[in-house]
C-alpha cells in the first residue's frame, strides 16, 4: 500500500537523523521530550525561560495555505504578532526558536522539515498550524502526504483549522509562552470586541 511505503520512508528519515531517545514506540514522544527538558531545568533556567518566553522568534518557513495566515497574516497589521515580540522572522534555523509548521508536509518535503528542525539550535519549539500539519488534514488519504508533523518533529502546540484564523495562531503563541513559563492554565479574560 502506498501509504505504508511512505511511512517507512519517513521512518528511514527519522532513523538517519534522530537521536534514538526521541522516537520509539511511545507515540507521545513529544511529552517525553518535554519531560527531558523539564529535568534539564535549573533555577537559572527559570529566569532564562522568562526571557525565552517573551522572545520567540519563528523560523520563516511556510509550506502551504496556512503559512499565509499563520506567518503573514499574524504578522500583518491587524493581528501584529510583534506586540509580543514574536515577529522577528529568521530565515536561518540557527537563530529561530520556534518552527511554525504551517501547511501540508509532503513526503518529498519531510526530509527537509526534519533537517530544518534538527538544525535549529536549542532550545526550540514547534507549533503545528492547520489540519495538514496536525494530521495530514484534508489530504490524509493522499499518497504523498505525511500524516502530521508530529510524525516528524515533537509538536508543542496544535492549532486546528483550515486555515486557522490568525487570532488562533496568536493564541497558539501565547499558549507556547505559557508552556515555556510552565503555566499550563491560561486564564482568558473577557475580551472586548472591536469593530472596524
Amino acid at each position: 500500500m502506498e501509504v505504508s511505503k511512505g511511512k517507512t520512508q519517513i521512518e528511514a528519515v527519522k532513523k538517519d537523523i534522530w537521536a534514538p531517545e526521541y522516537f520509539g514506540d511511545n507515540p507521545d514522544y513529544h511529552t517525553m521530550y518535554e519531560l527531558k527538558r523539564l529535568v534539564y531545568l535549573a533555577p537559572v533556567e527559570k529566569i532564562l525561560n522568562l526571557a525565552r518566553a517573551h522572545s520567540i522568534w519563528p523560523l520563516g518557513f511556510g509550506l502551504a495555505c496556512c503559512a499565509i495566515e499563520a506567518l503573514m497574516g499574524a504578522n500583518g497589521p491587524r493581528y501584529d504578532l510583534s506586540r509580543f515580540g514574536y515577529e522577528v522572522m529568521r530565515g536561518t534555523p540557527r537563530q529561530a526558536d520556534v518552527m511554525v509548521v504551517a501547511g501540508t508536509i509532503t513526503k518529498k518535503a519531510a526530509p527537509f522539515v526534519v533537517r530544518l528542525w534538527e538544525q535549529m539550535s536549542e532550545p526550540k519549539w514547534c507549533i503545528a498550524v492547520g489540519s495538514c500539519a496536525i494530521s495530514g488534514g484534508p489530504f490524509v488519504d493522499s499518497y504523498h502526504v505525511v500524516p502530521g508533523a508530529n510524525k516528524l518533529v515533537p509538536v508543542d502546540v496544535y492549532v486546528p483549522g483550515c486555515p486557522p484564523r490568525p487570532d488562533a495562531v496568536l493564541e497558539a503563541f501565547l499558549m507556547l509562552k505559557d508552556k515555556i513559563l510552565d503555566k499550563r492554565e491560561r486564564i482568558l479574560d473577557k475580551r472586548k470586541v472591536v469593530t472596524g
Partner: protein
Amino acid sequence: MLENLFVGIADWLRSLLGGLGTPVEINEAIVMLVKLVAILVFILINALWLVYMERKVAAYMQARIGPNRVGPKGLLQTTADIGKLISKEIVIPGKADKVVFLLAPVLIFVPTLMVFAVIPFGKNMAAIDMNIGVFYLLAIASLSTLFFWMGGWASNSKYSLIGSMRVVAQMVSYELPLVLGLLGVIMIAGSLKMSDIIAAQEHTWFIFTQPIAFLIYFTAAVAETNRCPFDLVEGESEIIAGPYTEYGGMAFAMFFLAEYANIMVICAMATIMFLGGWHAPFGLDFIPSWVWFFLKMYALIFVVMQLRWTYPRIRVDQLMGFSWKVLVPLALANIFITGIGMKIYQAIGW
C-alpha cells in the same frame, strides 16, 4: 551644573584618586576605565533601545503597534531578546573553521567600541580627544570589514560565503566615498581633531557649507553599516542572513549589537562633522551640550530608520556602480570645488 555633569564626575574621580597617592598613570588608567565602562554601558543601553525603537518605528510606519507587552510599553522586549540569545545554543558547523568562526563575533565589537573613544558626546566629553581623531576613526572602522568577512568565510556555508563576499565588496566600495566626503570638512576645519572641528562650527554648521559632502557621507555611511536600502549583506529575501547565516545565539547577538552600535557611530559622526556637534542651535545654550548632541544624533538615527522602512533594496551591481560611478566622482568634485571656493574666499576675504 548639568552642562558639566560628566566632566565634573571625571574630575571628581581624578581628585579622589589623586588623594590616594597612586602613580598618575594608574590614576589616569582608572579614570579611563571608568569612562570606558560608562561608554560601554551607554552603548549597550542605546543598542537595546535602538532595536526597540527600530521595531516601534517600523511598526508605526506599517499601521501596526509594535512591541508593547514585555515591560512597560514593551521596553523590555529587547532585553528579553538578549536574555534569550545568551541562553541560546551556538551551533558551530562541523565543516567550519572553528577558531575563526568564534573569533569573528568576539572581534566584531572591538572596532566599534574603539571608535567610541574619540567621539565627544558633549563639551569636553570625549574619552580621548586625539590629534588625528577623524583619521583614527576611519582607520579603526575599516577593520570591521575583515571581521565580517571572517565570520562569513569561516562558516563554510554558501549563503555565508556569498554574504561575506558582498559585505567586503560593499564596505570597501563605500569606505572611499565616506573618506573622501569628509575631506571637504577637514579642509575647512583644518584639523583632524574632533574638538577643533566642532569648534569650527560655532557659527555655521558644515551641513550648510558642505551639503554635497553631507549627502555623500550619509549615503556612504548608511551603506557602511549595511542598512537598507543597502542591506544586501543581510538581504533576507535573497541570501537568507548573509554572513550570519550560521550564527545563532550570542554570536549572532554580537553582530546585531555591533550593527546598532555602528549606526550610533555614523550618526554621531555626522552630527560632529556636519551638524555642529554639541553646539546649540538658535542660541539655546541653557540646554546642556550633550543633550543637543543626542537630539541631533537621534534625529539622524530616525532618518536612517525611516530610510530602511521606506526603500526597497538595491541590487549588487547597482550598489557598486552607485559608489564608484556616482559617489566617488562626486566626492572628488566636491573636494575640488571646496578647494577653489576656499581659495577664492581667501583671495577676497583675507
